[in-house]
């Protein structure tokens, strides 16, 4: 079976577009170079193909179940995670002293997308553990790091993120779980949590729950939330008071067990504070920002899988003849010969390859943010991450789902059956617009906070980045028209943004069309990332890089043409969205709830 990403595409994004070898200029990565990066990616691809991909359907068919009070999960999931950990992926970006290889985050992500493409729900377990380790590394005390980091990086312990409660999903300010000091540095937690992925199972020696809770007497709202580490098994070896209330039965993403948990039913749930009291949400979001890029990339990888699967199918399924062919005895043509099929393939290619390019560009910003010697560079990278993260999470997860829909459509009846994997990709992907902050909430975050933060500094940096690309692209005659088109789209978006953020509409009305704003920004960013790829493709076609053009000609022409597709068919969608926003259209807002 095919596995995304296509190696030549990953190579193109990492080297032609992002020039990842330059990361070795940062002292932390000086031991690295193209050779180690490629070896790591090769190991990732192999393990993804051998250990993750084969049980993707099996895990869908046999969802986790409760047997005698224990969560039963098909063994292939644990075996795959073990191979992942044995190869060192959980520790990859950490210090050598901790057993890591100080791999740049860009390469860690480029490796991880293989596991996401192969089996998103199995990849979710190490995904959560890596995020938990990052959080403990950033905020934990020395004692906490000494105790928990080692086992997390080796994969002996797994981590979870425990925010949601039955009555508090999007609205975390309503979290009710409480923590009472036990008089001995520790806390006792009480509360119900909902939707917790990886919340209970037998695959790890221990599960470390990172739980948002309110210390007794803390302020109401998100300002009173603190973060606690609650182990499934306490240091003294006793089972902690964390009870599995039940499992949720999902439409997709089934390999990841999803749980409702009761903390402290018996009054004896031990937890330790991470970092400062009342800073919990900031810490959690510190971790979740990277997780959100990961969620976007996960969605994009499913789009990529669907693209490659439907592409193979379209190349091999004979069906129909060209319009105008009168001879019924003429052989049928392959599906891919039909313009409408190519439309749907292009749509998927745009989202899949464009999304991967954007996700890895963001990962490279994470490296710049963490490693650049110039403070200004670090701050700017951070601001760009702030503003583009909700876009990859929300716009791309929506588009990726639409891409999977196109994959099913291309395959017709076959695509609708369980004999082919695309229906599962769609179901698995349906989660991504919901979790890690529903897309509607991401849109509100983008327009309500990110576009205006620090007097629009983040927005300004994104504008600068896009402008810079229009200048680069203009140097290639064949990209001049696209460069102009992106410039005028950018001007339109700037205008809309300033109208929206300066009009005295009040937050209710200003945010009423946040989703349209997200969509407009998403299309702008999609066009920009494609123009970046097109510039790199033009460069590649010149063959300055050792003259490998011959090998890559079709591939590079495909990049250029997909860029043209995005500018002809996707970027123009900005216009009606901008109209809606600029004219403060309140049709949805004005619908009385009683009129439905």
């Amino acid at each position, binding site marked *: 079976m095919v*596995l995304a990403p296509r*190696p*030549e595409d990953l190579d193109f994004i990492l080297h032609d577009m992002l020039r990842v070898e330059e990361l070795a200029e940062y002292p932390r990565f000086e*031991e690295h170079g193209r*050779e*180690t990066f*490629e*070896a*790591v990616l*090769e*190991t990732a691809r*192999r*393990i993804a*193909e051998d250990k993750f991909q084969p049980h993707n359907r099996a895990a869908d068919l046999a969802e986790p179940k409760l047997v005698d009070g224990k969560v039963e999960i098909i063994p292939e999931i644990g075996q795959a995670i073990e*191979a992942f950990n*044995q*190869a*060192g*992926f959980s*520790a*990859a970006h950490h210090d050598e002293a901790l*057993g890591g*290889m100080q*791999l740049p985050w860009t390469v860690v992500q480029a490796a991880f997308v293989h596991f996401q493409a192969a089996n998103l729900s199995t990849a979710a377990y190490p995904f959560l553990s890596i995020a938990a380790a990052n959080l403990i590394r950033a905020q934990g005390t020395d004692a906490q790091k000494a105790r928990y980091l080692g086992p997390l990086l080796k994969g002996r312990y797994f981590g979870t993120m425990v925010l949601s409660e039955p009555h508090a999903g999007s609205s975390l300010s309503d979290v009710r779980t409480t923590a009472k000091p036990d008089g001995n540095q520790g806390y006792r937690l009480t509360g119900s949590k909902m939707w917790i992925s990886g919340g209970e199972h037998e695959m790890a020696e221990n599960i470390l729950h990172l739980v948002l809770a309110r210390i007794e007497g803390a302020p109401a709202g998100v300002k009173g939330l603190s973060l606690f580490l609650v182990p499934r098994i306490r240091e003294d070896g006793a089972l902690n008071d964390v009870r599995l209330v039940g499992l949720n039965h999902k439409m997709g993403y089934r390999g990841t067990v999803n749980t409702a948990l009761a903390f402290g039913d018996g009054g004896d749930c031990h937890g330790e504070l991470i970092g400062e009291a009342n800073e919990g949400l900031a810490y959690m979001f510190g971790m979740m920002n990277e997780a959100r890029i990961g969620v976007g990339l996960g969605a994009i990888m499913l789009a990529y899988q669907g693209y490659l699967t439907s592409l193979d199918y379209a190349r091999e399924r004979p069906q129909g003849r060209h319009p105008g062919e009168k001879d019924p005895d003429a052989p049928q043509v392959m599906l891919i010969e039909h313009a409408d099929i190519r439309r749907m393939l292009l749509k998927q290619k745009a989202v899949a390859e464009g999304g991967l390019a954007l996700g890895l560009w963001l990962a490279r910003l994470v490296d710049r943010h963490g490693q650049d010697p110039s403070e200004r560079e670090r701050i700017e990278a951070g601001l760009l991450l702030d503003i583009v993260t909700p876009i990859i999470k929300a716009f791309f997860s929506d588009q990726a789902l639409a891409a999977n829909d196109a994959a099913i459509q291309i395959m017709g009846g076959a695509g609708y059956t369980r004999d082919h994997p695309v229906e599962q990709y769609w179901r698995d992907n349906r989660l991504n617009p919901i979790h890690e902050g529903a897309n509607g909430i991401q849109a509100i975050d983008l327009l309500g906070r990110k576009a205006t933060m620090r007097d629009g500094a983040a927005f300004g940096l994104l504008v600068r980045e896009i402008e810079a690309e229009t200048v680069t692209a203009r140097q290639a005659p064949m990209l001049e028209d696209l460069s102009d088109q992106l410039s005028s789209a950018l001007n339109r978006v700037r205008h809309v943004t300033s109208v929206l953020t300066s009009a005295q509409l009040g937050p209710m009305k200003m945010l009423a069309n946040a989703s349209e704003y997200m969509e407009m920004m998403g299309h702008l960013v999609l066009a920009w990332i494609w123009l970046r790829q097109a510039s790199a493709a033009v460069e590649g076609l010149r063959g300055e890089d050792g003259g490998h053009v*011959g*090998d*890559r000609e079709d*591939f590079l022409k495909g990049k250029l043409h997909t860029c043209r597709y995005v500018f002809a068919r996707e970027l123009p969608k900005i216009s009606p969205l901008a109209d809606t926003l600029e004219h403060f259209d309140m049709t949805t807002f004005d619908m009385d709830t009683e009129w439905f």
Partner: protein
Amino acid sequence: MKVLVPVKRVIDYNVKVRVKADQTGVELANVKMSMNPFDEISVEAALRMKEAGQASEVVAVSLGVQQCQETIRTALAMGADRGIHVLHDGELEPLAVAKMLKAIVDKEEPGLVILGKQAIDDDCNQTGQMLAALLGWAQGTFISRLEVGDGELKATREVDGGLETVALKTPAIVTTDLRLNEPRYASLPNIMKAKKKPIDQMSPADLGVDPAPRLETLKVVEPDKREAGVIVADVTELVDKLRNEAKVI
């Protein structure tokens, strides 16, 4: 004892191989290349010997284009100690490879050479046997089990009739079959270590071998497409079809 493991760079086993339009060979441009899967099994076998204290050093050898160094690096990242690369840009036939390996064996004096039973690109299944003949060493081919004793090996061979176990005096040649082991992945820490391991480069001339092909490839074509089957009504029709259409009886 020292163990020598030849590793060949071949089209990745997942790639759908396409014949070039001009029928001179298969499409290699922009195609993913990897270590021959049987050779991975050989590397694994050698590494297990080293871990069991039965081998002192594992040397990976590859012959061919510059990128063969990547294949050697993979072996080093799995755990091999050092590499030897014989740089050659043209086609290499099993006999030329066997001759060059013999020259390397003469210099390195390993106690055991572990080869894959065949390479998945040309499926020749010749190099190991030719090397054994050139060296005059004992050989155990297609092995699915290997026991290392003192000066002697017990190799279990997968043959048509089942399993056959042969005792080989060392130095010896074995060629590996699929069921011998499940090769490990190059782990990330080992990838970093592999960077520092040495790879010697030499040319066929350094080994005193003329690698020019002895065979000429006339053309390469796709195998015939299999036609769809038919369901016959009864035995008479079957016999009739076998006799008159398929002409096999």
